[in-house]
């Protein structure tokens, strides 16, 4: 029914890949349906995006296919705006969320996270770095823009005390609806920097304005970005059995090496988790 159902049929799960333990843990409901519907705020490059042929791709997509194969079902990514992503789960339109969603204790009240990434944030500045930002503390007292649905705003507020002690005072944060809004704000001079997941930052630096608009601040002390947080698959609390099955499947994906391959494909090897876990974020 959804207008934008991802064309995921071409990679039907082959029984050879199925992980028996994980598949056994999967509730019958999904097994019978043969499908797990994944809500995703497409596109959110490089996590989920389209290739030249308008085929769905991205880290979340590839990982979802691998996990689905382990479970013996199709994982189908469907477009879902972040602002109503929880209602879409509660109403049964979707079963899980894979949208590069950060795992925080606050969110754990509503959903369980099956964590699959551990990554920090990067600072994206206009090409040439006109404000000479070198570390996160250079942002103190300045206008900084972040995307609303991410966890960066909370993390940056954590620097308030350090910034106040240093003199310039806390950062002035603008939380904007979309990552593109954040980048536009930086280009318009409304903010000196865009603070965003490292993977998204390097994509933007490579893509925006054919790579001419932005650059990522390289802080040798934090090569994988600042303040790493977990990113996970969101599953409603009441579907604990599904979380368990997903965790088992993810472990199996990690174990057979395909996890590392997918990470490598998107240049994200720095952000790997050692093993799957539930609600690791703190």
């Amino acid at each position, binding site marked *: 029914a959804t207008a934008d159902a991802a064309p995921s049929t071409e990679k039907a799960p082959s029984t050879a890949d199925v992980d028996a333990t994980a598949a056994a843990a999967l509730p019958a409901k999904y097994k019978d349906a043969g499908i797990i519907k994944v809500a995703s705020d497409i596109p959110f490059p490089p996590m989920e995006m389209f290739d030249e042929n308008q085929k769905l791709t991205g880290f979340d997509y590839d990982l979802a296919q691998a996990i689905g194969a382990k479970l013996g079902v199709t994982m189908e990514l469907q477009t879902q705006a*972040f602002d109503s992503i929880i209602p879409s789960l*509660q109403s049964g339109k979707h079963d899980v969320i894979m949208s590069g969603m950060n795992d*925080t204790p606050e969110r754990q009240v509503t959903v369980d996270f099956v964590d699959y990434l551990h990554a920090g944030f990067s600072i994206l500045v206009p090409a040439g770095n006109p404000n000479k930002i070198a570390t996160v503390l250079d942002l103190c007292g300045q206008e900084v823009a972040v995307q609303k649905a991410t966890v960066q705003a909370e993390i940056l507020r954590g620097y308030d005390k350090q910034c106040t002690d240093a003199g310039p005072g806390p950062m002035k944060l603008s*939380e*904007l609806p979309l990552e593109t809004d954040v980048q536009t704000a930086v280009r318009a001079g409304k903010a000196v920097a865009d603070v965003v997941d490292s993977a998204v930052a390097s994509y933007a630096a490579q893509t925006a304005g054919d790579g001419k608009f932005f650059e990522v601040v390289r802080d040798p002390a934090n090569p994988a970005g600042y303040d790493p947080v977990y990113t996970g698959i*969101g599953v409603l609390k009441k579907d604990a059995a599904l979380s368990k099955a997903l965790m088992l499947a993810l472990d199996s994906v990690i174990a057979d090496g395909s996890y590392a391959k997918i990470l490598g494909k998107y240049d994200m090897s720095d952000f790997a988790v050692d093993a799957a876990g539930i609600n690791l974020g703190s």
Partner: protein
Amino acid sequence: MAHATLATPVGAGPATQIDPDDIVAVPLRHPWRWFLAVFLLIGFVSLGISLWQNENINHPTITEFIFNPRILSGVVLTVVLTVVAMLVSTVLGVLLAVMRLSNNPVMNTLAWLYVWAFRGTPLLIQIVFWGYLGLLYAQISVGIPFTDFTIFSMETNTLIPALTAGLLALTLNQAAYSAEIVRSGMLSVDEGQYEAAYSVGMSPVFTLFKVVLPQAMRVIIPPMGNETISMLKNTSLLSVIAVLELYTVATQISSQNLRQVELLLVVSCWYLFLTSVLSIPQYYLERYYGRGKARTLPPTPFQRVRALLGRRPITVRRTESQDAS
């Protein structure tokens, strides 16, 4: 003609004497009215109960957030933005409407162009335009075009902070819509009114403000009420330039704690409350500007309740014109 006895008297005017020649008739019954009323009452009540008891809704979250200080400051900002934008845009709208109705070709074309451009592009894009004007023009200068002479020059982002940009966008956009409404109101005033006003030596401007607009108000107020209520909610588009009004605050909170349904309900409660508050002045403004139109003013809600209980139609004509539909 035999007199029926088993019924209420029709005559119930101030002359209380009941004459044997008065008609004593069975008043027109409306059984389906009551059926419908009861049916809908049951419907609403059971909808309310089922909504309230729904397990997907966490009531403590609602009560926690409804008077949350961030939400409250969002409410205040929403109200301020709405009021300021509506007032300024109405003034602009009247100006544009007058220009648009003029046969002065320059004024007319100008107003038409304005309405075309500002209604034609999405408000969101206008907000982005004003909010990120610095993207297009880093400096705003006032000077003589095509020369180097400048009177004044300033950083765009200093000149137009986000809130100003938001207000500017809402106001300029709304003015285009208001202009159309005011224009339609002015068209509803009889030409004889202009003639009478001119014949006693009123100037066109005086005529506009004392004769035409007061009569146009009757027609203008309901759609302007619409616009005000839309504006209340359009302020939420300012989230793209990080103006923290009610809706933006709520989605910020919900994007962190993922209590999206509960926060949408909080927002709905506030909007419903604000809409209700706004519809009180609208009601009385309508009554005020309706004076002199009908021979008798329409009943107030209080009078309606009395009429419902007393089952006495208020005027014959009105009752008929609507019973049938």
